[in-house]
């Protein structure tokens, strides 16, 4: 006869989750994040990359975002439902920013004029 404990595990879908990484992985990710931040500040000071600065900074920032969310917040290892819930909020937030930018004619990309 299945107990309450067994039922809880039946619904856990453990194959969708993986063990969290250890201190070594966290430290490596931390070093990568620090290097990307240094790169951001470096590119900010370089006149030669001024033309592609905005997309470059956006890509670097998005990389940092994904690393923190994926490794430090464990979305890469946890149940996909957490990714879905957070991703929905993120998508709405991105839509709000994009809509307001266009609505007020202030899209931050330089080529828009």
């Amino acid at each position, binding site marked *: 006869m299945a107990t309450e404990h067994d039922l809880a595990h039946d*619904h856990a879908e453990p194959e969708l989750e993986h063990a969290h990484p250890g201190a070594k992985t966290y430290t490596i990710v931390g070093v990568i994040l620090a290097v990307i931040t240094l790169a951001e500040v470096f590119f900010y000071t370089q006149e030669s990359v001024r033309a592609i600065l905005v997309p470059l900074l956006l890509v670097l920032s998005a990389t940092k975002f994904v690393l923190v969310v994926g490794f430090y917040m464990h979305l890469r290892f946890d149940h996909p439902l*957490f990714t879905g819930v957070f991703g929905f909020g993120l998508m709405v937030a991105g839509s709000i920013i994009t809509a307001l930018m266009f609505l007020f004619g202030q899209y*931050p990309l330089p080529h828009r004029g």
Partner: protein
Amino acid sequence: MAHTAIPVIVDTGAAPPAAVAAPLVLEHPHTSTGLDSRKLLMWAFLASDCMFFGTLIATYLVYKNRSPEGPLPRETFDVPYTSVSAFVLLLSSLTMVLALAAIQRGEERRMRVWLSATALLGCVFLGGQFYEFTTFYHEGLTLSRNLFGSSFFTLTGFHGTHVFIGVFWLLSLVAHSFRGRLHQEHSLFVEIAGLYWHFVDIVWILIFTLVYLIPD
């Protein structure tokens, strides 16, 4: 499941021998998803906070260059100084996740050290933000000076408030640990606090790029 922390006593179904106490299985209550509702709730809160900060960031981007008079962003920001603040907050995310790894291994003393370090780095960030705000104020940029000032202080002020709440939360976890109320089986509490703290960090990642680094 890597984290099952809620101390609920569940009947394992087996009758224990008369002389032996029944085993206590620590498990979270049964849910339709099989996931801990508190962790799911935190993710739902963070999703809603995404929308909150998304609106504030959009408002800043719309208003930053619509002020008829200065000070304006380019003549106000000190990017090298803010870069140090960004480093401090990134470092605090690392110490936070090391605290979680420590309690998941059952190393409570080490967890307290990392949690305290995270709170300290959060305080350093807040101190830096206070100094930055004070400097801006002396340069003539106030909340009511122009649209740039209003949207900038509202955005970064709300982020700073989030950091302050996070520091308070972390210190309360340290206090609970010192009182012997936070053990390996309660690692979910640290994980949820960590989710909040890392969210504060990723919001700053976006603010640092969109507000400070991207030119006018």
